[in-house]
């Protein structure tokens, strides 16, 4: 209990004094996860829309695999990305290992199945509604996908926020591919792991509270910007 209280007071102090180190790792956390989020959405939304409107032989299998990949342990993704990006690996020449870019890559791999699965379910439900109309209007495949994505944007936003939550709290993969290097690849979650390992629970909790507050703030801001929960607006 003392630790929790200690953590809270430390958290307030760090934020109140605008601690420079805290600011640096917090901004890096946001940079890595938000970049990964944008890239993942650009991949996941069209994929989900495609799976919703096209009927082809292995569609059910692909959807099942996509759903299953949501449960992929992030640390396994980290290991695989590490092996690929390692100097001894196939993509080693890119020199991406132990940089924020590697962390972004790992997070994109982790987040895409999550966003795609949730988005796909919403788009599929919407497609049930729109199916007769759009087929009758002889709309092209691309137009179908774009119409679905636009009209389902609120649900897609939820999918995105789920991805954000997964990414900002992730520690296993980015620890491996980022290396938790001070001033280069250290983010909130890896810093928490480090402090916990040192037994400095107060500071670890403080960073944890900051992380939670940051996540809530980002969610609130996105909701405010997209004006959800307003009457009669889609």
């Amino acid at each position, binding site marked *: 209990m003392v630790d929790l209280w200690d953590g809270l007071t430390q958290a307030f102090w760090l934020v109140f004094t605008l601690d420079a180190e805290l600011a640096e790792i917090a901004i890096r956390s946001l940079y890595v996860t938000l970049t990964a989020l944008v890239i993942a959405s650009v991949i996941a939304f069209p994929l989900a829309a495609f799976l919703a409107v096209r009927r082809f032989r292995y569609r059910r299998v692909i959807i099942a695999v996509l759903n299953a990949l949501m449960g992929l342990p992030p640390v396994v993704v980290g290991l695989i990305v590490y092996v690929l990006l390692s100097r001894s690996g196939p993509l080693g020449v890119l020199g991406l290992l132990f940089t924020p870019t590697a962390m972004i890559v790992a997070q994109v791999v982790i987040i895409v199945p999550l966003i795609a699965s949730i988005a796909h379910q919403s788009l599929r439900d919407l497609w049930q509604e*729109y199916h*007769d*109309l759009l*087929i*009758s*209007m002889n709309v092209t495949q691309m137009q179908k996908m774009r119409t679905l994505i636009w*009209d389902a944007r609120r649900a897609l936003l939820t999918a995105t926020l789920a991805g954000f939550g997964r990414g900002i709290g992730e520690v296993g993969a980015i620890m491996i591919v980022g290396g938790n290097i001070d001033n280069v690849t250290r983010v909130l979650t890896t810093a928490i792991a480090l402090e916990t390992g040192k037994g400095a629970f107060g500071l670890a909790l403080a960073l944890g509270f900051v992380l939670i507050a940051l996540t809530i703030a980002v969610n609130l801001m996105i909701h405010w910007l997209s004006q959800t929960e307003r009457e009669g607006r*889609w």
Partner: protein
Amino acid sequence: MTALFPLIVSGAETHRRGKVLVGPVDLQLGGEGATVIIGPNGSGKTTLLSLLHGTARLHAGTITWQQPADVARAAQSFVFQRPVMLRRSVLENVAYPLLMRGVRRTKALAVAQEWVARVGLGQMPERAASLLSGGEQQKLALARAFIIEPQVVFLDEPCAALDGRSTREIEAILQDQKAHGTRLILSTHDIGQARRLADDVVFMRGGLVHETAPAAQFFDAPHTDAARAFLNGDIVE
């Protein structure tokens, strides 16, 4: 303007799970006025409309327009019994077909505005379409169907779920469009509506076309017993 017609249907059939749903159907439809398909529930009216429009699969026979298939498709619209609303405003719903055809947004919205007014929804262009009443939604669907200036519009029991006032307003719009030269092919189980709108009648029963005739002839002196019974108000299977 009538380049699509005559529409020649020969031996057309559609199946479901190996059983014949509708057909074989032989029909010839000319390019003028309104054809009303009537018959008891379950006789296959909706399926026939879908077949003619091209959204139901043709398992046997032919359906031939006088133009290539893609040209024909682009000149048609379909109005469903229960209208499908896009999750957008009234105006955007009506403008949607134009936008899909590449019309510039400002122009599409302007044309849509005219149509919205014409069908009597001029007071609410920005409202979310899903919040409209049944009658209002169907009027929106009509505007959306007519905005592309199709040569033929299919309508599947357009007033089935509507009250008298909405039905009257919608029939007025249909009469107006018919007068402008748009070919209407619609189904209904309301004999009164058929009388009001039809120039010729197709009577269906059990998945087959039982009788076809010009309207006046059909209503005064139907040839078949089933048609006579149906017009009488008896239950026909």
